[in-house]
């Protein structure tokens, strides 16, 4: 019998099983989180505007996402510090311009919607997402995702 089994590598099957269990350990919580977000977004689409339930639900969801994002960001970025490539950000100015252009087009459309005469439908985002619950849910999920990114992305580190 070997006195030191630590030097012997595990059988390949055991490594694959461990890989599967590690992956399942990450996929299952992510799937549960996604399901929770979709349920909350569906529930949020039924909130009536100008009610305390809508205000508390919106701010409550936002604060929960911010808290979870900060906690996850701290744990994730402490465990896996960003590489020099991530710090340097290798995307191009053209890519940034595409994002800005999409934002400008959406903002221009919204402003035009605000200028619509009273006897016509307003095509602003806020008016339409109140009229269509699936759009409301989709916007809610997008808003939560943006909050997650804002909370979980690390702040600039001071140079020592």
């Amino acid at each position, binding site marked *: 019998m070997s006195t030191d089994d630590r030097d012997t590598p595990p059988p390949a099957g055991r490594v694959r099983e461990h890989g599967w269990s590690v992956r399942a350990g990450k996929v299952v919580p992510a799937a549960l989180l996604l399901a929770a977000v979709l349920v909350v977004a569906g529930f949020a689409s039924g909130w009536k505007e100008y009610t305390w339930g809508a205000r508390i*639900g*919106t*701010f409550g969801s936002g604060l929960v996402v*911010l808290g979870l994002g900060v906690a996850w960001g701290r744990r994730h970025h402490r465990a896996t510090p960003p590489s020099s490539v991530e710090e340097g*950000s290798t*995307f191009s100015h053209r890519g940034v311009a595409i994002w800005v252009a999409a934002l400008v087009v959406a903002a221009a459309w919204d402003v035009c919607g605000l200028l*619509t005469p009273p006897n016509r439908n307003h095509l602003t985002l806020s008016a339409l997402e109140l009229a269509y619950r699936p759009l409301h849910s989709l916007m809610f999920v997008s*808003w939560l995702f943006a909050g997650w990114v804002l909370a979980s992305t*690390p702040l600039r580190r001071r140079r020592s």
Partner: protein
Amino acid sequence: MTVTTSMAVLIGSDKVVGLAFWSSVILVFTVLEVLGHVPSTRLPSLEGLVRRYFSHPAWRAFTIAVWLYVGYHLFSH
């Protein structure tokens, strides 16, 4: 006919047009986000943009406040 009325006619006052537009906007941003995680495209993801342009604590706090207000305006107001 005023400018705003003309623009409203041009855009179309049908709600379906508006729904199609905003659905397209969401689709565009989703595609940009997905492509931002593909290194060969050299497109930024939302996290990349936040990391580059919103990494100062005061600027990030202001952005989060704006984000909260947008949520309040869209979902409870």
